[in-house]
């Protein structure tokens, strides 16, 4: 019980501090007449931003609620997932290993979180065959999470015995040293399939090029728009931007991911309709609709 009491005290203390700041700054404001004091509690010409955020917030929270209640929410199968399965299948036919690179960022990057979910699913499909799943990692924090994801995958396929902890390797936290070392793995261990899914930067060039030269089938995916052109030309298939998150939502059916995906979908539908309507009205010379979207 005392923990709850303590939190209440913490909140009250924080609010009190802020009102103390309010008194302080209000007194300060009166001494510096430069800033004219404004006492309105709502800026009406920012009403359109308020409504837009309310719609997006409402859609997301509503869908997360439905997902939590277990309602079935339809999400189409992402073509990228078939490409991943095909790549893994090819590796199993050839009896060669699969290399899974989860991006170079830490766990606070949502792309790394999405990549861990896909990694778990890849581990599940690989567990049935005796081929190694190599996961080179750049950030120390990611290693335990990746181990957990792969172990879950193997155990849910009933092959926990085949799980090899040492295949999940911390390489180096320096960007180009990591890229050089992973290129070395590609050239030495010659994996049949390279999966590059997560947050990538300038080193994506080195990895995709070495992978292409070893003849491995490559599937990549990142939300970093500036790296997509290289992946698209160097890899067999590329998940583009949000598809990385859609794939992780599709696989995990996790309420938060599913809810925000469906919420964004609803918002996109509203935007498409708004653009169609707006274009028709603009062509007809009606201007008031466009003015709704002006921001001061």
């Amino acid at each position, binding site marked *: 019980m005392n923990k709850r009491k303590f939190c209440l005290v913490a909140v009250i203390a924080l609010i009190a501090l802020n009102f103390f700041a309010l008194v302080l700054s209000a007194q300060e404001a009166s001494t510096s007449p430069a800033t004219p004091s404004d006492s309105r509690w*709502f800026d009406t010409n920012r009403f359109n931003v308020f409504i837009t955020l309310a719609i*997006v917030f409402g859609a997301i929270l509503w869908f997360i609620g439905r997902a939590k209640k277990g309602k079935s929410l339809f999400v189409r199968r992402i073509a990228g997932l078939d490409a991943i399965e095909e790549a893994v299948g090819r590796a199993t036919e050839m009896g060669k290993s699969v290399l899974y690179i989860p991006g170079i960022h830490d766990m606070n990057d949502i792309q790394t979180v999405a990549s861990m979910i896909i990694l778990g699913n890849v581990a599940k499909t690989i567990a049935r065959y005796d081929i190694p799943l190599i996961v080179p990692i750049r950030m120390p924090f990611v290693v335990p999470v990746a181990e957990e994801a792969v172990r879950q995958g193997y155990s849910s396929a009933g092959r926990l015995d085949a799980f090899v902890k040492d295949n999940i390797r911390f390489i180096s936290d320096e960007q180009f040293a990591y890229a050089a070392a992973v290129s070395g793995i590609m050239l030495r261990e010659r994996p049949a399939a390279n999966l590059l899914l997560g947050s990538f930067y300038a080193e994506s060039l080195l990895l995709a090029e070495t992978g292409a*030269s070893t003849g491995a089938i490559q599937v990549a995916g990142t*939300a970093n728009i500036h790296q997509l052109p*290289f992946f698209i030309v160097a890899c067999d298939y590329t998940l583009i931007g949000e598809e990385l998150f859609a794939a992780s939502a599709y696989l995990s059916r996790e309420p*938060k991911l599913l809810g925000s995906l469906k919420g*964004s979908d609803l918002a996109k539908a509203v935007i498409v309709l708004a653009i169609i309507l707006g274009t028709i009205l603009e062509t007809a010379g009606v201007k008031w609709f466009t003015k709704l979207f002006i921001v001061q």
Partner: protein
Amino acid sequence: MRKEVPLIITFLAGFFFIADYFIPHTGFSNIAADVNGWAIIVLAFSYILGVGNVLRINAQRIAKKEKDWVLKVILVLCLFFMLGIGIFGGIAEGSIFDWFFVNTYTPMQATMFALLAFFIASAAFRAFRVRTTQAALLAITAVLVMIGRVPIGETIWKSFPDFTEWIMGVPQLAGKRAILIGAALGAISTGLKVITGLERTYMGQD
């Protein structure tokens, strides 16, 4: 206590920032200005923390005499050297600190980025394969933009630069705008989940 207070602080900080946009009330905006000012200070501390991590990792490597541990010693020495002359000798133009910035930091960082020119050239040669119609479209646009955007392009065809400007200003823009809107929706939903405490991965492992 471990989870509740941070969630409350995150909610309050996020709420103040959003409310500050909608509430022009001077008293209120002064609080928001104060909270923003605090963030600037805490971020400076977190930068120093980041350097602390660099020191800790390298100190471990030196202690365990890992490969290239001598280089790690040089790294730590350089860190303290630059830190020392910066804090005590001042950072203005003409100081020793500035000399080291101009003659070591600048050339090394600039050259590391210049390496990318070579990597992109070898990638263009060895990995840039037009396997699908999509890749073909990407390749054609890339070449048109690259040639149209340099003077030689203009000598080849007088209005090549205007054509490149058209590609950039119309078809390319439509694609980028869609990505912008998609990313905006993604960022808003992530921000909402973090502020309401639905998303806690940032809390890190405890």
